[in-house]
């Protein structure tokens, strides 16, 4: 192949050129042969044939030119014509573009949310498609938990398919600014973190190999760009300075680049510290080298070309080996690789189901918008039937007309695509508004990269097909002879094509009904959750936090402080009782969890039942309002010198002692035997929608933490109690920074964000859909009236009262609505089950939600039908018949 051919091939010119070349060669060959036959020498004949043919290149170029012009010309002409048509009817154009912009924009926004929080959740991290989450599993227990550092090191050593094993654990700390405490979030990471994530610090360095080894050995920190800018004013000489975390100065070694927010969906990190500093940041002691301590939330990076399944096989085989080598800690333990969006460790668990529903909903909204625009186009097609018939009469082909109408549709949707992308850009940060802020920096942004834009463009093309094809076919299908006659003599319900427009409205009504039912169900769930009984009394209890660990307290000093502070709190006016609890219920703090052994209970082989428990102080049950139904509460005497005790809940008593009285029986937790001294009523512990589960309590004194929650039963409100608490705290230690105070009820409400986001989105989009459907219905009614003035006039002339006309027209509109509702109800009965666990104590077929949706649809359809019907009643029979 000559270079020239190669060039042509690259330009895709080869097809045309090759066949032309062959034809021309054939022609010249034949001609030369004929000339030879008339007595010329072969050379002479060849020369002569070429001359007679003329410039082959010139003719080839003419062919190419005509092909280029043919396609491009008609397309450009169609676009120009389309733009002129849009300008000529601005009302139509604006309405259509608005509908489509809403539809396409909503879809683009959701796509960008999916991209930004699920598929590519960590801005600036390289090649996220190869990054996976590693989670621990326990046989017989559903769900996932973390990993221990020794297990991770074994996986790192033995897996050849993994490029990197990266350890990370979210930690919070308190940075005091004056007398105000500010929460800062960051993470403990393995030394390879920055390299493996592909992040290069803008100033200084990441961590060096070995900095994650040795107890408290490397007090170094990489700070975020935001922290560098706000706290250190972007000082380039920040490297080598120190920042105190939890009472220990850490040397700043690097600044992360702008736009890197860490690797945790939802939060914005402010600092990174090597794993070796774990004891400083986690209140439950030094667990870095314990194989049974599963607190790390790790990532792995796959080698190029390795699939998840292959890597899973490899880590599973390592996990099996660990199970055999370390039965005490690893019996029943497995390891699962998960894509980032299925991570059990961060907000993806909330975002994934919510965005799934939202994606479906926005798609429905797009369908409704398309139906609406389709309807508008049909109306306009009728107005343009003269133009169409003229064009057909002068010889335009039907395909040519359809092509032009499709171009006009495409023009509409491309304009809307641009608008939609702008809408999505504007909505990028909207998601974060729906998530309750708990005083930490949130990062919850959509990502509008080329993939989102490309997908939105595809959605836009799809939409064009949806809304433009039917009107295009319909309007190119005009009866040329018919349009010569005057056509304002329509009969209500009698027009050809009217059924098409009616069924489009029907679809819109049906889809709106579906969305409204969904919104109703979720909003009802929300209100049920708001008033549900969590098993404790949330209303008169305030919650706050006492952060001694962050302030550098050692255990003995913390014990003294907590006792003194408790005495002062209890003495405050209006305080009925108060208690410490390491974890405040319904926060995102995690309860302690441990495999347990129970006297006389045989667990299935290969399983280690692990149960969550809470460390609480005396007076906890009275304060939070969980009744102790047998035995006793913890007392002050249950301290570090007394024998260990525990209180179990009803579910645990039923499961492990099977109806026998558990009081006085024993269970083993983390190598310590404890005696059961009481049984507490079941309650909800972290979430209102969680199932009943075994749970137990141990005295805080016997399992001490320097970091704990404080619960206060009082009739005072948080605002009046907070300054009193701060005063008492400062009188004991002026350096301590008090935390905010909220009621337990508020804390409960914070946990409803999943239902809240889904409910709000469904309500917003349901309302939008209803609005679009109303506009569609109004369009059909107004059109019906305008097309049947003659019939209406005739009826009036024959003695029909305005009421009769009103009834005639309303019945038609309402009939359409009723049919739409019927279809919508059938769809809703089938579809609402998909809301699944988002529904709380509401049946997916809840009659109230269906009734509310019905009511809203009826109101909307009345609003759509009344004005045109009203106009119809004022038809002047004389004018109507004369025109």
């Amino acid at each position, binding site marked *: 192949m000559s270079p020239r051919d190669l060039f042509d091939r690259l330009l895709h010119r080869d097809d045309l050129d090759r066949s032309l070349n062959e*034809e021309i060669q*054939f022609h010249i060959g034949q001609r030369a042969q004929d000339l030879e036959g008339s007595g010329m020498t072969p050379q002479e004949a060849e020369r002569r044939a070429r001359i007679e043919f003329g410039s082959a290149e010139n003719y080839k170029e003419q062919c190419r030119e*005509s092909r280029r012009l043919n396609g491009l010309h008609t397309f450009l002409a169609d676009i120009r014509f389309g733009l002129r048509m849009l300008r000529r009817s601005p009302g139509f154009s604006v309405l259509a573009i608005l509908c489509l912009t809403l539809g396409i924009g909503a879809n683009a926004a959701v796509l960008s949310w999916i991209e930004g929080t699920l598929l590519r959740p960590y801005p600036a991290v390289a090649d996220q498609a190869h990054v996976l989450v590693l989670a621990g599993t326990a046989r017989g227990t559903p769900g996932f938990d973390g990993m221990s550092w020794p297990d991770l090191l074994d996986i790192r050593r033995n897996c050849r398919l993994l490029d990197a094993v990266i350890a990370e654990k979210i930690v919070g700390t308190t940075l005091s600014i004056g007398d105000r405490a500010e929460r800062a979030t960051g993470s403990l990471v393995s030394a390879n973190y920055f390299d493996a994530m592909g992040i290069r610090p803008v100033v200084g360095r990441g961590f060096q190999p070995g900095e994650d080894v040795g107890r408290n050995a490397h007090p170094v920190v990489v700070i975020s760009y935001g922290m560098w800018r706000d706290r250190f004013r972007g000082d380039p000489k920040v490297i080598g300075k120190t920042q105190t975390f939890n009472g220990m100065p850490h040397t700043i070694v690097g600044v992360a680049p702008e736009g890197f927010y860490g690797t945790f969906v939802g939060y914005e990190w402010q600092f990174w510290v090597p794993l070796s500093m774990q004891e400083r940041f986690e209140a439950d002691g030094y667990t870095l080298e314990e194989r049974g301590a599963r607190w790390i939330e790790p990532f792995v990076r796959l080698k190029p070309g390795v699939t998840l399944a292959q890597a899973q096989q490899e880590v599973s085989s390592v996990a099996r080996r660990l199970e055999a080598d370390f039965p005490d800690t690893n019996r029943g333990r497995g390891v699962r690789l998960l894509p980032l969006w299925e991570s059990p460790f961060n907000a993806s668990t909330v975002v994934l189901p919510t965005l799934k529903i939202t994606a479906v909903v926005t798609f429905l909204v797009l369908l409704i918008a398309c139906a609406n625009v389709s309807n508008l186009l049909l109306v306009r097609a009728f107005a343009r039937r003269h133009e169409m018939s003229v064009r057909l009469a002068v010889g335009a082909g039907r395909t040519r007309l359809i092509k032009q109408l499709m171009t006009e549709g495409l023009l509409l949707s491309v304009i809307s695509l641009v608008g939609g992308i702008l809408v999505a850009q504007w909505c990028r940060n909207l998601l974060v508004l729906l998530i309750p802020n708990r005083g930490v920096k949130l990062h919850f942004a959509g990502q509008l990269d080329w993939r989102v834009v490309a997908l939105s463009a595809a959605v836009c093309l799809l939409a064009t097909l949806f809304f433009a094809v039917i009107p295009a076919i319909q309007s190119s299908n005009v009866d040329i002879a018919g349009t010569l006659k005057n056509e304002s003599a329509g009969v209500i319900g009698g027009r050809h094509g009217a059924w098409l427009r009616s069924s489009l409205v029907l679809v819109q009504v049906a889809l709106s009904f579906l969305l409204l039912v969904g919104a109703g169900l979720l909003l009802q769930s929300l209100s049920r959750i708001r008033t549900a009984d969590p098993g404790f009394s949330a209303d008169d209890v305030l919650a706050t936090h006492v952060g001694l660990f962050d302030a550098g307290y050692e255990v003995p000093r913390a014990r003294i402080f907590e006792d003194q502070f408790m005495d002062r709190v209890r003495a405050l006016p209006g305080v009925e009782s108060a208690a410490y609890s390491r974890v405040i219920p319904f926060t995102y703090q995690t309860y302690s969890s441990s495999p347990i052994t129970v006297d006389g209970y045989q667990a299935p082989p290969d399983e280690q039942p692990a149960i969550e428990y809470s460390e609480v102080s005396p007076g906890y049950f009275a304060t939070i309002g969980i009744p102790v139904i047998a035995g006793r509460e913890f007392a002050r005497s249950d301290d570090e010198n007394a024998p260990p005790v525990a209180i179990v809940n009803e579910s645990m008593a039923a499961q492990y002692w099977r109806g026998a009285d558990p009081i006085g029986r024993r269970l083993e937790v983390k190598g310590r035997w404890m005696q059961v001294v009481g049984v507490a009523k079941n309650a909800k512990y972290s979430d209102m929608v969680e199932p009943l589960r075994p749970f137990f309590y141990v005295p805080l004194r016997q399992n001490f933490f320097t970091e704990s929650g404080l619960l206060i039963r009082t009739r005072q409100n948080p605002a009046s109690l907070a300054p009193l608490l701060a005063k008492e705290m400062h009188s004991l230690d002026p350096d301590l920074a008090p935390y905010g105070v909220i009621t337990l009820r508020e804390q409960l409400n914070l946990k409803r964000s999943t239902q809240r986001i889904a409910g709000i989105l469904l309500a917003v989009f349901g309302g939008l859909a209803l609005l679009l459907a109303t506009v569609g219905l109004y369009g059909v009614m107004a059109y019906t009236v305008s097309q049947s003035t003659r019939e209406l006039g005739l009826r009036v002339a024959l003695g029909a009262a305005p009421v009769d006309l009103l009834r005639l027209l309303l019945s038609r509109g309402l009939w359409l609505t009723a049919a739409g509702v019927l279809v919508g109800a059938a769809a809703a009965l089938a579809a609402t089950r998909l809301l699944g666990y988002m529904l709380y104590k509401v049946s997916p077929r809840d009659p109230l939600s269906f009734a509310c949706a019905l009511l809203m649809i009826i109101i909307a359809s009345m609003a759509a039908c009344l004005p045109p019907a009203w106009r119809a009643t004022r038809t002047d029979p004389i004018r109507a018949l004369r025109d």
Partner: protein
Amino acid sequence: MPDSADILPGTLDLLILKAVSLGSLHGYGVLLRIQQISGGAFLVEQGALYPALFRLEERGLLASEWGVSENNRRAKYYRLTRKGEKRFREVADSWNRLATAVAMVLKTRPEEV
């Protein structure tokens, strides 16, 4: 070729359609057929045939397929599509009307005016 004339603009298409309507032909065959049926009256610039064939094919009046020529070489054969036949009849009709009209005009003698 004695007495041959340059063809009128726009008539090349008509000539091609006519030539092909008598049976499918390759490009060179079209040239020969035109010369044959016009008794050599028209001088077709040989290369100009190809852009014209190409245009007619693009407009769907001609269809083509590759075949083998009488001396066993690969050649592209053109035939008339149904659309082409229709178009040919239309153009031929209007040409005939024009030709008749022009002929009548030219035949007119002074005393007839």
